């Protein structure tokens, strides 16, 4: 009965409240309230992107199981209640006016349309493609009537993009390959073309892992294959706190023959509050881009540090101390 009343009241609400028609970033026409006050960010990649500019309008964030503790981020983010979006009734119980979902365009949009019609709550799609994040903030600014704040974010990102372009032009890479290392033993990876290694693609760094079967996500490979690929650089992702294949790679004789290990080009990917590469592939990739510019394009360490500190302040609402920065980069 309670739920019934709830559904009726939501329908009533959507009809009575003055609505405007907008076109979301995927080109869908969606009817949204004139002044949006209650937003659900559908997943962590969306919520991390917009918690700063949405402020108190962001009433809940969809979460996948797993990581629950974050550091180096404003407590405003952790305080936003989590909701299990797989259970549609939980979404209805929160009664958001709109649901914002981050996607990578072009993408099949059927699921979002069916979600919208099932819930009868407008679903607005924003583009999380790595090269368009500044435009996403411009869009969010208009949607949330917070253009001044969002302008800061899009300006920061535009500057980053321009800087990267000029760095890349100044010193183009010649065939340098990098391997993205996942899992306890480092034998999982994301091959070229995966969403999770777009930081490489964006900076024109060749992903060493080339596989015959195109895959969107993680694949398992064997040691011999890595020896065949023989990457110049290795980036190891932290596997839940203590276990990072980084140590194994540097000490095990099996990995010792690789170019990356011989030249000491093995790096631990910073992971707080979210990893700089992916997981989720969202705004958290920007510090990754800045960091890789230092490694591959001779950006000075001071510039890197300044840019990253500014990023954390703007997008995570957290002022990095020297100690924090050292810890991150250790």
């Amino acid at each position: 009965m309670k739920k019934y009343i709830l559904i009726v009241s939501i329908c009533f609400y959507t009809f009575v409240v003055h609505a405007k028609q907008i076109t979301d970033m995927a080109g869908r026409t969606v009817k949204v309230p004139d002044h949006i006050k209650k937003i659900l960010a559908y997943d962590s990649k969306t919520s991390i992107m917009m918690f700063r500019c949405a402020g108190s309008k962001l009433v809940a964030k969809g979460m996948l199981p797993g990581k629950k503790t974050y550091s180096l981020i404003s407590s405003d983010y952790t305080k936003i209640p989590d909701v299990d979006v797989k259970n549609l009734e939980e979404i209805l119980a929160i009664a958001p006016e709109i649901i914002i979902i981050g996607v990578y365009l072009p993408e099949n949009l059927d699921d979002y349309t069916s979600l919208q019609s099932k819930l009868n709550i407008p679903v607005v799609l924003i583009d999380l493609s790595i090269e368009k994040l500044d435009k996403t903030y411009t869009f969010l600014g208009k949607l949330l009537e917070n253009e001044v704040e969002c302008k800061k974010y899009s300006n920061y990102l535009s500057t980053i993009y321009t800087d990267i372009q000029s760095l890349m032009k100044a010193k183009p890479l010649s065939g340098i390959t990098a391997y993205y290392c996942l899992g306890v033993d480092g034998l999982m990876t994301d091959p070229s073309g995966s969403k999770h290694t777009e930081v490489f693609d964006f900076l024109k760094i060749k992903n060493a892992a080339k596989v015959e079967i195109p895959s969107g996500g993680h694949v398992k490979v064997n040691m011999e294959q890595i020896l065949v690929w023989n990457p110049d650089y290795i980036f190891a992702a932290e596997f839940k706190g203590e276990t990072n294949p980084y140590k194994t790679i540097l000490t095990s004789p099996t990995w010792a023959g690789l170019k990356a290990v011989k030249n000491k080009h093995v790096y631990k990917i910073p992971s707080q509050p979210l990893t700089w590469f992916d997981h989720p592939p969202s705004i958290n990739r920007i510090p990754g881009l800045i960091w890789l510019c230092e490694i591959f394009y001779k950006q000075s360490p001071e510039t890197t540090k300044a840019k990253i500190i500014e990023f954390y302040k703007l997008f995570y609402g957290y002022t990095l101390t020297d100690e924090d920065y050292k810890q991150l980069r250790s």
Partner: protein
Amino acid sequence: MQSTKSEIVIIGMLLLTSICVAIISLHFGRFTIAINDIFLLLKSFFDKNTLYPETVKTVILNIRLPRILAAFLVGGTLSLTGAAYQGMFRNPMVSPSILGVSAGAGFGAALGILLALQGFWIQTLSFLFGIGAVLVVYSLSLVTGRKYDKNLTLILSGMIITAVFTALISILKIVADPNNTLPAIEYWLMGGLSGVQLGNLQYIAILSFAGLLFLSLSGWKLDILSFGDEEAKSMGINVRRLRFTVIIIATLLTASAVSISGIIGWVGLLVPHIARMLIGPKNVVLLPASFLIGAIFLLIVDDFSRCISSIEIPLGITTALIGAPFFIFILLKTSKKV
């Protein structure tokens, strides 16, 4: 007497084949190595001055050799325990995982991965949970099985505990981080030998050879057991003790195999049948034959797993896809003979 001689010949041939397959497998892999370099490496053991590329040593000794030994031991062990169980339960559809060892081991490993433990501890947890699951099954069958057929209650208890552990694995999958932990658990459950290290193999090596020896020597008891519990008792065999010993040994062996390879189905069910077609039902020879055929089978299947694509294909997939047609072929061939 004639038959015993031919049986020994068959076992000898199998032993020779398995060693040959293992040596040939050393040559297969994604990294191309000239045969010449392998010989140079072999020569260097006797002549310290021999020069060979450093990567050849890494690939052959650190990557391929542990994997080949592991495939040999795991394939052999799973087939040996499958054959012993099929004999003991007098049921050809029984596999080594029937008493819940794989499900228990799977849960242990998934728990280890979820807790982000190091490889050795994941293996240990998996081993302990595998044994734990079977102990629960055995005690359950003792409590419930007073009035009923012992084999039936054991198998039923096994199914119950397997269901429970499968559900528990699913719970761990729900709470696992889908970005990193979940794929690691999934890959473990699909089986594979890519993470094997030489240092992890000594226990399973000792266990499997001791188990092979013991089970083969008690093979004649299992033969008598095939006539039924009562008949075996009347011939002076302590059926309860025999059953308990076989279960304990098979569990130790399977748990140690599963803990290094993940869950590999099929081998333990299929290979004993092939062995039986080849050498007959006498357990004294059937058990070692199963061990060797299982070793050969898994060596070949693992060669496919690591060579066919730049992505590692989990053994759970290749054993079924290569095993099924192979089994059909054997069935067709033997049915023609009759």
